[in-house]
């Protein structure tokens, strides 16, 4: 059963457990590969994760002159292949979200591979496993469909699936928030 990463930004409390867990998957050289931002730190405590969205037609891979960035059959956009990456950093510039990170010592790009050794077998990635708030969830297509029905999306589209960004992404992001349109119980 295919599952996807689904993000409800409004739930984030900024605990950065996703970043801590990212270092603990057993195969990421204990370096975290995503980001959590304070949205407006002098005003309030709103935070948001910025995870790789695993674009269907990813700019990072398109921009790579060495074809070092492979796309897994699950749709996960993998980290650069060590033997192919030439360290040009095109990908870090091409990605509209600034996801790929660069290791200057190894002259190598590295990025989120959606914990491919887990997700290929249906095990949730570490970030979504530990997220204490359900900001990051690992959902079936049916569950994502239900979310799409539940919330009033702009033009019926997820906010990240826009033409001016990178079009369709494998990771779905719900913005502005899950409380939109909720009917109160009483």
């Amino acid at each position, binding site marked *: 059963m295919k599952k996807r990463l689904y993000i409800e930004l409004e739930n984030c409390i900024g605990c950065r457990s996703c*970043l801590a867990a990212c270092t603990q998957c057993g195969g990421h050289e204990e370096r975290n590969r995503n980001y959590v931002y304070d949205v407006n730190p002098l005003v309030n405590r709103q935070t948001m994760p910025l995870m790789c969205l695993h674009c269907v037609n990813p700019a990072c891979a398109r921009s790579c002159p060495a074809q070092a960035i492979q796309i897994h059959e699950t749709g996960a956009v993998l980290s650069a292949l060590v033997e192919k990456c030439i360290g040009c950093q095109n990908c870090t510039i091409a990605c509209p979200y600034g996801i790929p990170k660069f290791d200057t010592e190894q002259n190598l790009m590295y990025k989120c591979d959606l914990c491919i050794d887990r997700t290929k077998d249906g095990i949730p990635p570490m970030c979504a496993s530990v997220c204490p708030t359900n900001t990051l969830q690992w959902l079936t297509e049916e569950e994502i469909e239900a979310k799409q029905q539940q919330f009033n999306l702009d033009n019926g589209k997820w906010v990240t699936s826009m033409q001016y960004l990178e079009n369709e992404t494998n990771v779905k992001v719900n913005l502005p928030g899950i409380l939109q349109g909720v009917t109160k119980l009483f």
Partner: protein
Amino acid sequence: MQRDKFFREIENLQHPNETLVKTHCSYCGMQCGMNLRVDTRTNKIIGVEPRYDWPVNVGKMCPKGVTAYQQTNHDDRILKPLIRDDKSLKGTIKGFREASWDEAYDLIAKNFQKLQQAYGKDSLSVFSGVSMTNEKCYLTGKFARVALGTRYIDYNGRFCMSSAAGGFLRSFGVDRGSTLPWTDLHETDCLFIAGSNTAECHPTSMFRVWHVQERGGYLIVADPRETPIARRADVHLDLRPGTDLALANGILNLLIENGHVDEQFVNNHTNGFEETKELVKQFTPEYTSEITGVLPEKIIRAAEIYGKAPNAVVMFARGIEQQHKGVDNVSAYTNMALITGKIGRPKSGVATFTGQGNGQGGREHGQKSDLLPGYRKLTNPQHVKEVSEFWGITPEEMPEPGVSAYEMFELMDQKVIRGLYLLCSNPAVSAPNSNFVRKALKDLDFMVCSDFYLSESAEFADVILPAVTWSEDEGTVTNLEGRIIKINKAQEPLGESKPDWQIQVELAERLGRGKYFSHLKTAVDVADEFRAATKGGYADYSGATWDKIEKQDGVFWPCKSEEDEGTPHMFLDKKFYHPDGKAKICALPYRPPAEEPDEEYPLRLTTGRVVYHYLSGNQTRRIQFLRDMCPEPYIEIHPETAAKYDIKHEELVRLYTRRGEAIYKVKIIEAIRKDTVFVPYHFGHDQSINLLTNPALDPISRMPEFKACAAQIDKSIKKVH
């Protein structure tokens, strides 16, 4: 057992040459389930995997939990006993030398006996903590009373859970931190949360909290700061620190006036309604607003939501409890559930967010100055008789009740207490009014500290004994629900470290009290004695066997026999634990904080936690990821207040009170009251905010008022003394 909507059947990833050991986190009262990854070639803990099948947190972990395993094989571990011969170096990390266990034990026995011969049995004291198993907590109580024969034992729960305990005992006649399991929380219709920075202190509760709102339910949060949970609340009651009692009385008044009283429940199952009704009458929204600083409309709206909610849970934490009226605050918020009858049924009730891992179990079995195992009382001759017989001593040999944690430091200062055995706690950082506390520790004739890292408190010791971390021993812990769970051993003790129960048995033998302790050779032996000792007490653990805990995903106390499955929901029969079976609705006159702002000290100082650190920070400050995220304390201040003092973001300022001072970096944020400043308390030495806090004690719980005192800011950071 419970398989709620968040439960997913997920098989763990298994790396080659590794086994997974099911256990729980070392930190807070959530006691999140986790798997420790153990390398089968080295038999060492090397990582963590989510424990998806634990019903409370279903695999979720906060950043402390994810990195908790890094404590065990940390470079800072103390691997051998340490002795310091030069007393002039007390209060520093200097002068310790490695020693054998034999030499350390001999030195301790010699000094303890010398002090007791010269100044009497009670010249020794034990200061312990509740970040350890029930079995260790139990044995620590027995060690103090039987091996040392001293009345002076108390523990760091006095800085944590004692107000909740006092309030629940008064309101319900029983002190179980939550009247319902956590797996009910997301199904309630209204969460009323006071003085809990839940998102940072108990993060793995948050998916349930948010789900209440997602279902259309309500979230009401009372806090001086707009914390991450308050940010999304339907109503944020942004009260002045230390004014909870007025807020609770004000809401109670509105609930009564607006007809939300469950009269049948009140008449049949409670006492005290009429006098309480009379007392809270004066707490009109306007009067309540005047005291608390919360807009009357918000108070009215909060009362309306709680009153109308079919099911609701009132929850609170240290924000309301760490006050010199903490017990009153607990009973006052509990009143809301009692007058509306929203208790004693699923999805409704009252709960406190237990701070320490075993804050619940650790306070029940005799580490508290006046308690014996099974929540028996030292002031009750029958209880003393039962426990004396069980331990094989005469009732006359049982020491009298002692004094509370902070008061022990006062007795050290007065030279009544001259020796200390400190374990599982770091009072040099966590106790209020640290200048006084640190001096009391420094002036002791002899001090022993058992810990796995060299804490700020260990710096005052003559002997340091290397203890194990939680993952190198086994035993039970009682989580914030009242659910007894099992901590499993994942690796052998590092270096020469030993579990505290073993240290106490061996030390008792050196002190000539072996006949009461020598039969305890394994953790299982201690567990068997512990469960038997609780039998007949009202915190009865006798039926909570390790097998049953494994089979049922934990056992909620009371659990009185092999057949008894335990008690997830309290009071389903509407029977409370007072002799007449009724709960007490408490009439509680308002008292302001012990120290109110004035011209000299115009600001209100409150303290608390950040998500990356736990308690005194002795553990979490050593974990790279957590230290990177929050390396130092800071003072949080509203931009308008900052402008008045002409101070800027990230500038250094001196913060001071009548008791002490410290220098902090300024963090400007609108999400705090203009009359209040906040500093997290996880940091030691001259960064410690407890240098400034007020040791005014609650008359019942003896809890210090960490959460409200008067302070002033000075822009020039030149030190005064």
